[in-house]
Structures are given as C-alpha cells and as structure tokens.
C-alpha cells in the first residue's frame, strides 16, 4: 500500500519508517506536508497560537522519530492516527503544564521532550567531563569511522546491512568497527588526560 497525498512524493509505510531512521529529508518533508496541516489545525482549534503551532509540529515529528528509532512505533497502516494521538496527548500535557506554570510558554521550555530532551542531553554532556570528552573525540574521528559508529551503535542496522551499504566484507566491517571504537576510546582518553593537565 502506498501512502498517497496529492502533489507529494509517494512512500510506502515501510519506506517512511526506514527513511526516518536514515534521517532522509525527503521523508521528513513528506511527513511535514502530509501531516503538518492536521497538527496545525488541531493546535489552532485548541487555543494554540502560531508560535505554538511551530513548536508543536517540531515536537510531534521529533516524538514520532524517537518512537520509530526506539521501536515503540509499529507499522499497522495507522500512521495518521498515531500522529493525531501524539498531537493530542502532547498538546494536552503542554496545556496541563501551563496551567501549573501559567507564566511559562512553550518557547521558554524550548522543545522539551519527555525524557530525552536535547537540553537535558546537552546539559548532561556539559556537566560530565567524560561525556564532553567523548563528544569532542567524535568530532576528531574520521568521517567513515563516525558513520560506522553511528549506524552500528544507534540505528540498530544489522551488521550485514551496514557491510552491504559500505561495500565491506562482513568480517572486515566487524574489525573496522572494533578499530574505530578503539580509536574513539583512545581519543577520549587523550582529551581527558589533556584536560586534567590543564586543571
């Protein structure tokens, strides 16, 4: 079954899920065009401002992406219903929080998601020297190693699939992952040592 929307590129539900995992802009654009009006309509109807609409579209799409990434969303041909539910739940929670803290708007909170906000993660990284060093070491790692680690650690892509994508022999890829991780760890330790000297 294809998910159709007049004037938009067509994707199968499976393509949408894999496109989200691969962070494909065309898939995000499709979701934005196909479901953005529904989210916007819901927020406007329920006393949201234009600023709320902007923020809530981002929150809902991010929530959907996290649900797909963490395997919490299972495709049953009801993506529209899922997004609608996500919108109504998130907006209801937001309104409830505002009643408790009436002076704080959504933009003040800057897109806080339930348990994995960028703000929380960023502040954790800033506070934690080790995390900070890993972050810095990732920046120093070569692009290929960075991609491999990202795919292997986070995206739950099977090793066989990564090997096919990167045109590596399966055993070589395993060794490469091992080497990249080792290099990253070494870089992290160097940064930590250097920072300790500076203290």
């Amino acid at each position, binding site marked *: 079954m294809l998910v159709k929307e007049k004037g938009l590129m067509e994707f199968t539900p499976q393509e949408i899920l894999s496109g989200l995992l691969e962070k494909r802009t065309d898939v995000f654009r499709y979701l934005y065009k196909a479901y*953005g009006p529904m989210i916007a309509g819901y927020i406007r109807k329920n006393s949201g401002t234009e600023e709320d609409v902007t923020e809530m579209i981002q929150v809902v799409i991010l929530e959907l992406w996290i649900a797909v990434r963490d395997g919490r969303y299972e495709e049953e041909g009801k993506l529209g219903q899922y997004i609608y539910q996500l919108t109504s739940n998130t907006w209801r929670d937001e309104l409830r929080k505002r009643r408790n803290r009436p002076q704080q708007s959504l933009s003040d909170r800057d897109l806080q998601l339930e348990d994995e906000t960028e703000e929380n993660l960023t502040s954790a990284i800033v506070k934690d020297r080790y995390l900070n060093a890993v972050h810095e070491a990732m920046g120093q790692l070569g692009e290929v190693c960075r991609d491999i680690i990202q795919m292997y650690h986070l995206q739950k892509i099977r090793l066989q699939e990564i090997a096919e994508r990167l045109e590596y022999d399966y055993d070589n890829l395993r060794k490469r*992952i091992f080497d990249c991780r080792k290099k990253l760890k070494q870089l992290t330790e160097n940064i930590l040592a250097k920072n300790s000297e500076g203290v």
Partner: protein
Amino acid sequence: MEQMEWQEKLRALSAGELTPDEAAKVLREAAESETKQAELQFSQKLTTVLKERDLFEVKGIVAGLIMEEGLPTAEPSSWLGKLGLNWILGLSLFLLLGTGVFFIGKRMAWWAIDPQALAQQYLQPMENVIYLEDNEAPAIEDLRQGMAAYDQQNYRKAAQYLKSYYAQVQDGNAGLFLAISHLMEGETDQATPILLNGLQRPGPIQEASRWYLALAYLQRADTQAAINTLEAIPASSIYGPEAQELLESLK
C-alpha cells in the same frame, strides 16, 4: 575475538535490545572485570553522545523544513468546505485576471524583485569576534589560519581551514564564520546546513544564523523560505531593522 563479542553485547545493552535477564547477565559480567567495567562505561557515554548528535541533526532538519515550507495553513474542515474553497479560489483568479493582473503586478513590482541581487546587496561579512588567545582547542591552528584568511577577505581559503576546524571541534562560532565564508563565495548549499545547525544554538549564534540563513535562501532564489526566516527575526534583534527592510522589499 572475545573483545569483539563483548563489544557487541555492550552495544546491544546500550541500544536496549536485551531482555532483562540478558541485561543483568551482561552487568554481572562487567562487574567481574575492571576492563569490562570501563568498556561498559564508555559504551553508555558513547550512546548518550550519539543520541544527542542524532537529535540535534533531526531538529535541524525539521526546523529547516518549517523555514523552507512555511507553516501549514488551515485545512477546509469538510468535503463541502474543500469544494467551496476551490470555487472561491477559481472565482478570485477569474476576477484577478479580469481586472488586470498585469497592472496589479506591475504596481507591486512582483517581477522587479531579484532575490539573488537582494542577497548580494545585504550580504556583509560579520566582524571577526573570535578570541584566539588562551584557546587550546585541538586543531587551533586551522582556526587561526581560517580567521586570518577571513580578515583578509580570502573567503575560499577561510572556508578551507574553518571547515577542517569545524569538523573536529564543532564550535558554533567557527561554524558561523565558515557558513559566512561559503556565502561570500556563493556556495549556498554548503552554508545552509551549517546555518540550520546554528539555529539550534542559543544566543547570538542563533540570531546571526537566522539572518544569514535568510540571505542563503535568497541566494538560492527561494523567496518564500527567506520571508519565513526573516519573519522569525525579532524586531529587537541587531538584525531586526535590516530584516524588516528586506521583508518590505520582498513583499
């Protein structure tokens, strides 16, 4: 070989792929060896950092889409509503044509606007405000050379060095100057993703990124995305007056 298998177990644990029993077994195994414990700690930290980088990237994509596409307008609530809207649109179009769209357009100077020329007119390099003394970041030499080239208005060379520095340190300030160097060279495609990332950073970087992003869209002749971006610049911002002026030229 054994180390690889241990690594795979740690990855599965961090990714939440193990059953509670399997996870407990891995944790017990880690507790028995200092090396394994250290590997486990590294794996958990790495997962947090990767998640943060991932989330940051997705936020950039979605924010960029909203900028490019604009906010969705209200949908007609029913089939009859849609039909009615189509009639109204058709009728409006007919009336517009009938009353001389050419003269209206001419008066509003629709086709006198050249977005790329406007981008050229408004694009000025930002003053170098990067403080290099006491900065011991890795690859600092790249930053030093990049900013020296930037000050000499050699933007190609500046982009080359700043790109290398930014790839290693992901310093938001350096990213901004890198994006501006690309814009000065007319390399809009390279500048845009960096500026979209800049929108996620608080304070002056975000403010400047928004202004230069609007200019990047103009360079790409994407007038609607430029308008949406300019509208998001508050009047109180240091770019506020210029943004208002540019908006008026575009509307």
